Structure formats: C-alpha cells, structure tokens
C-alpha cells in the first residue's frame, strides 16, 4: 500500500497526522512531506483514516 500526496492541494490542516501519527510526516511549515514507498501492514488503518480525513482531498491511497 502506498500513500500519494498531491502537494499543491495540501494546505497544512494536519488531519492526516492526527489520524496517522506513525505514517504521515509534516515539514517545518506543517505541510505534508510523507514519502513512504510501502505502508507496513500494521499501519494500514492509520493510513486509510489519514487519507479520509483530509479536507483538501490531497491524499490518495494506492492498494497493492
């Protein structure tokens, strides 16, 4: 499973981080800088909730 970030849509709401603290990474300005090739299976739930929580629809989940 992968998480794709559309950086131009991210506005720093940080809802992904609230739902997926072990998956999502923010930069110093609070915008999403997640760069994960493979979300480990045990973090799939966090990744899914983080994607769903984004009010900008900036995140996409690509299931294997």
């Amino acid at each position, binding site marked *: 499973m992968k998480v794709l970030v559309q950086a131009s849509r991210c*506005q*720093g*709401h*940080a*809802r992904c*981080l*609230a739902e997926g603290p072990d998956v999502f990474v*923010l930069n*110093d*300005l*609070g*915008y999403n800088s997640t760069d994960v090739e493979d979300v480990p299976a045990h973090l799939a739930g966090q990744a899914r*909730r983080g994607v*769903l*929580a*984004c*009010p*900008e629809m900036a995140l996409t989940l690509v299931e294997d």
Partner: protein
Amino acid sequence: MTNQSVASQPPEGAPVVDFDLSTHNTMAVANSKWAELRSRTPVAWSDDNGGAWIVSSYDLVSDAFRNWEAFRSGRDVRTIPGPGGSPNLLPINAVPAQTTALMIPEELDPPLWQPYRRVFAELLSPRGVEKLRPRVEYWVTKYLDDVIESGRCDIVETLTSGVPGAVVLEWLGFREDEWHRLGAAFHNMSAFVPGSATADHHMAELEWAFDRIKEEVTAVREKPRDDLTSFLANVQVGGERTSYEFATGMVNMAMSGGVDTTTSVASAAFVHMHYHPEVRRRLIDEPELIDSAIEEFLRMYPPARTHGRTVVEDTELGGYMLRKDDRIIISEVSACHDETAFPDADEFVIDRFPNRHVAFGVGSHRCPGSHLARAMFKEMLTQVLERIPDYSIVEEELQEYPNWTALGGWSTAPITFTPGTRRL
C-alpha cells in the same frame, strides 16, 4: 460604521433572494435561514449586504475558497468611494464589507501572500504549537484556579475568552494589565451589528487596540524584545525587513485571529454540553473521544461563519456566471451543515468520521492558527470535565452574540458548579 459598498445590479439569470445577514440575530435563526437558502439554491444573488453572490453548499464553498485566482482576498482589487470621493480600499474578507485595520496574510493573494504565509505557517505548525502548549496548560489551570473555590463564574470571561487572550497576548509581549481590555475589544466588536450604537462604542475600543499595536510595532522596530511582536515587526522578506504597514498588519492578524475565535467554539461546546448531558457524560467516561468531539464541535459551531471575496475575472460557479468585480460571500457555517456532505448534519455525532468540515476554511487561506485553536480548546475542555464536571449554565443569564453574520458565539455564559481545589 458609515462605509457601505456600492450595490451591484443583479446579474441576468441569477436566482435572486432576500438574504440580509444583519437579521441573523440568533444562531437558530441564522442556521435555519442558511438551511432554507442551501436547499433552494447553493449559489444565489442578494441585493442585501451591499449586493453579493452567496455560496452555501459544501462543494461550492470548497471550490470557491480554493479558487484564489478568480476569487481574491486582497483589498487592492476593490475600492469604494471614501471621504471626499477618494478611493477607500475595502478589506474584502470582511462580511459585510467595511474598512478596518489591514490583516496580513489574510488579505494577500499569491505571490505576495506566500512569504507572509510561511511566517505564520512555521510559527503555528503542529510543531510550533508544541512550544506554546505549556503556556496553554498554565493559563487554563490558573484561570480555573481563580474561580474554582467560589462555585460560580462566567465561563466566557474566565476561560473561553480569558485563555486565548492570555496565550496570544503573552506571546505577543503585551503587558498583562492590558490583556483584559484588549481581549474585550475584540470579543465585544465581534458581537454587534455594524452601525448600531453599541457597535460604535466598541469600534472606538477596537481603534484603541489597533493604535496600541501601532505603538508597540514602532517601539520594537527600534528596540526588539524577545516576543512575537518583535519577531513579526522585524521579519525579513525577500532579503529586507518588511514594511511598517505590513508588520502592523501581521500583528493585527495575530491578535484578532487569536483572541476571540477559539472563544466562539469553546463557549458553544460548553453551552452544548449543558443542554446535552449525554455528550458530557460520554466525554467524561471516554476521554479518548475528545479529539473527534472537538472536530464535531467545530463543524456544528464554526467560529468564522462567512468570508468575503471579490471576483477578478468572469468565472462560472455552480452554473452561474459571476462577473468581474462582483462580491461573493462564502459560508463556512452553511457548508458545515450541508446534508450532502454530512449525514444527519444537524445532529452532534461524537465520533463522526470522516469529518472534513470547513470550520477553518479550505484552500490557501486555511486558518493558520487552527492547531493552536485545537490545543487551547482541548485543554479547556479537558480541565473543565476533570475539575468542574457538574457545571450548570445559569440559563436566564446566558447571552448570545446579537449578530451572527461573520462570527458567532456567546457574550456571557454564567455557570455554577461544586467548588473544587486549586492546582497551582
């Protein structure tokens, strides 16, 4: 206030409605009017409020907020005749339009917006807010300590207005003996119909607050201190120190964005839990639900209810052609109650998920203080539920803001509770 924007002619083919925001004098009235409008047409034209389009559905509100290229925030794109016929630049975020102090970066559009937004984004990122958390905890503890042995207080004055005021004004470096007056200036101004005698009185207090900001900015540009005002007043943009005007605009923004916005939603939450004891009971029994409850309180009671923009080029929205120079009112509160986006939108669903509300706006002007707001709101909620869990509102003394145009909230909310013990 004397400034009125120039009413535009209704555009051809537009659904024309009567929708005078100044008549939204209670939350119930306002919310039902928004619901009626939304079900009739998500984009409408009204000659009220100076003549403007009104956007009310979740999808179109989100689209409009994101389309900064067509719908501008900068006051340079719309003017009205001022005294003597000279142009009077309008802050077009304001609903209704009125001339007030400059807010930076809220009133900038890209590319000028970008460096100023970066300043606030970094200060108020989730990591930045962690540095303020001890002060948030301290002020909530201290202000509850001050009243906890008495069994009675106004929760607005003590906590929901007091705490954001203390956190923000301490950070800005204003003297503690001025906090109450500064906080009240913003709290009271939010609450009254522009043009009314009461609002004119509070307008004078607000002018005083903005004058104090100018004095402080002048002082710290000469001799910086170790505080946020000094940082903002001397910030480097594009290799040189920002102008006095923009420095003042940033401090205006930090103060007015900080002191009476979290107040609105936190007060609403305490009022809500008085009338819905089952919500309070669940949060006491299952404190892990507090984070999702916070999002639901924000959705039900967004502090900023509307924002304005100006159309800079003919643009289609929801099937209608918005014309260059038209004014547009975008409703966060209506979007947050849109059934098509939120099933059972009028119900408080404590664990609603997903909850992609727009209480902080969406798009480039998303409230940069949202993470600090959540931190203050959570600490207030947590300590109230721990320390005065049986609080009860004195219903006959509860007072709403008499106007719910741009900001909603409670002017006062006296409570009684079983006295507790101080922590400090």
